[in-house]
């Protein structure tokens, strides 16, 4: 549906937009790599801040001012701080050895999945190109220039997305209750059990369980 292209707001990309994109995309990627490569969790959290902040810039670049603000306030302002706080509280900011694979073959599998995911999205953009977006334009509500971004979002939240909004409220309640429950302390702890051996008895001959114990014999 080539019409989609025609309806997609302004058709040209300004040089500024490109420059901002390239810079922010680079920092996003760097930050993301930082999250998974950093041995120290604190460094990972700081990388995450960088990454999320860059994404906020990208939101701005795409005209989503409200989201950009929320991104900075909620993510970098609240979530990452919370994570760091827990990190410090529990003192688990020890470095971990990334070379040490907990499960054999986990690393290659993980990288394989990552490559597969990236490859599919890249293939999508390369094979289909500009026609990649085939959807009907303006299904829910057109983006308007004559109204502030936040107004448009607000209107949708309480019209088309009103159920979702209410549900989000319930979900946040659940999260809060859950966090409160988790913060309780039990009266007594049960001992941590010894790890069981992996070899459960496997036998297709159940006599090892039954025959000898069965004392009674009929007839």
């Amino acid at each position, binding site marked *: 549906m080539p019409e989609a292209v025609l309806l997609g707001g302004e058709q040209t990309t300004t040089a500024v937009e490109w420059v901002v994109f390239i810079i922010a995309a680079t920092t996003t990627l760097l930050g993301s790599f930082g999250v998974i490569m950093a041995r120290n969790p604190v460094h990972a959290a700081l990388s995450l801040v960088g990454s999320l902040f860059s994404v906020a810039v990208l939101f701005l670049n795409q005209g989503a001012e409200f989201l950009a603000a929320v991104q900075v306030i909620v993510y970098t302002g609240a979530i990452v701080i919370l994570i760091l706080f827990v990190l410090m509280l529990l003192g688990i900011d020890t470095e971990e050895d990334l070379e040490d694979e907990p499960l054999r073959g986990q690393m290659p599998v993980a990288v394989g999945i990552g490559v597969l995911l990236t490859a599919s999205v890249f293939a999508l953009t390369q094979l289909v190109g500009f026609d990649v977006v085939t959807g009907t334009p303006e299904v829910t509500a057109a983006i308007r220039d004559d109204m502030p971004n936040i107004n448009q979002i607000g209107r949708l939240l309480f019209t088309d997305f009103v159920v979702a909004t209410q549900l989000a409220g319930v979900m946040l309640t659940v999260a809060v209750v859950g966090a409160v429950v988790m913060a309780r302390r039990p009266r007594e702890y049960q001992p941590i059990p010894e790890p069981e051996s992996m070899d459960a008895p496997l036998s297709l001959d159940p006599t090892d*369980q039954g025959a000898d114990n069965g004392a009674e014999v*009929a*007839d």
Partner: protein
Amino acid sequence: MGGPITAFASGLLAQLGNDTTNGLVHESVQLAEGAPGFPLLPALVFTPLLGALLIGLIPGSRAELHRATAIITAVVTGVFSLYLLAIFDTADPGFQFVEATSWVSSLDIKFIVGVDGISLFMVVLTGILFPIALFAAKPEHNEKGYYLWLTVLMAGCMGVFVAMDLFLFFLAFELTLVPLYFLIGKWGHGRRVYAANKFFLYTMGGSALMLVAIVGLATMAGAGDDGGISFDLVKIANDGEISRDVARLLFVGFALAFAVKVPVFPLHTWLPDAHTEAPTAGSVDLAGVLLKLGTYGFIRYGLYLFPEASVWAAPVLLTLGAIGIIYGGVVAAMQKNLKRLVAYSSVAHMGFCVMGIFALNSHGIEGSVLQMINHGIITGALFILLGYLYKRRHTYEIAKLSGIQKVAPVFAGLFTLFMLASIGVPGLAGFVGEFLVLVGVFMAHRWWAVVAAAGVILAALYMLWAYQRVFHGEPDEENKGFGEIKLKEALPLAPLVALVVFLGVYPKPVIDRIQPSVASLIEHVEAQVPGFTEPTSQHGSELLGGDLDEGSGDGVSEDDVAGDDAEGAGAAGGPDDDEPQATLEGVTVTVTGGGS
């Protein structure tokens, strides 16, 4: 006790079976008010279930009530089955006493029951063997569960034999697994848990694909004018149209289940274990009734539903039957355990049944049905006797037994009688069925009959050898104290003795009832399979006639004259000869001509 039970049962059944139709072959279920009268067939299924329910409700402390309830239930059911036999219309080849009630309406699953000449005797066999097994054996612990499961098992067996709806049939077929599983696992001997698990998994594995086949059949062939789904046996058999290859595939699904149950040779390994470890009543019912579910299934759900596929698969199953006979015989001869020996002899005898069915002619199938009855009675009796033996000696080891004839002559005599019947000595029940099967197989595939006949000799070999080792000679210290059979123990065997002799001497009443249904089944197969005619040839009928009346020489010469022309053979053996009756040592064998 019996009064309230039956009253309650009939009340319940009046509720359940109020939409009934009686007729030759019901066409469709009339949901209008049906014929009044006692719903005999549902009563056969529900009386044991009701008994089971009662047993379940009686508290565990009242052990004697459990036994009484179970015996009364079984006897009442047995009486019902005998009454059924008495009022059965001999001339009618179709399904009788048909009762139909809608069950799952949206899938057109109905509760349809009916009996014809083939299932009639299976029902009667069930009705006789269960009470006898109950009388003959007592559990040593936990009576409640034992009697509960036995009555449930009886209901399941009855259900299989009277079902005329594929769904109902499958339910009953699968239902038999659970009670027997617990009977073997809880009240069995030795490696009982292993045997129970093996039994359960084998048979469940066998029938797993049958469910898929049933559903496939119901959706493809069951679709009538309305294009819906139907599980109605008669409707599918007569109106179902499915392509040849699909039908063969579905047949394989069914055949696997039955082959495991029979058991046919490579799938038989569960049987010796289950037989050997099962408690006496379990062995009796397993050998006497449950194995027949397979052979009965082959006739009703193999031959009747898939005539073409049956003809296609007949050579394979004939071969497997023959292998089973020889293999069962050879392995039985090598057994050190008496019960295991009888179990392997079952494999051999059931091989005869399978061969008879897949000879695809009336002699074969009639013989097969007869052999099922006989095997049920004989093996049942043998297992009861073995149960008595175990009670006295706590072993089945042949090596540990000797000279029992000296100390317990009546016991030995009874054993001899049933053993001879099992071997197939003329004048006793075992002979008639095997003979008819051999005749049928001979007509169809001459050389297989030769192989099968060798199996008869093997049977004599292993049985007599075992008998000699166990009963002859001098009793050693341990066997000196072998108590003679008590009257209380002998009484349950009395009907079986009578039956063995009666069926051996005068099987005509039985054959008279089987024959019309088998003839109609053969007709059905011939009508459904283009180009197929019953493999009855002059060889067969003349051989029979010649052998019995004039000697074998004539038979052979007629054989040469007639050649292999089946058509001519059918005509020659048909109306002209007008059902030759042959007599041999008191055996009356009625033989239908091929063309009839």
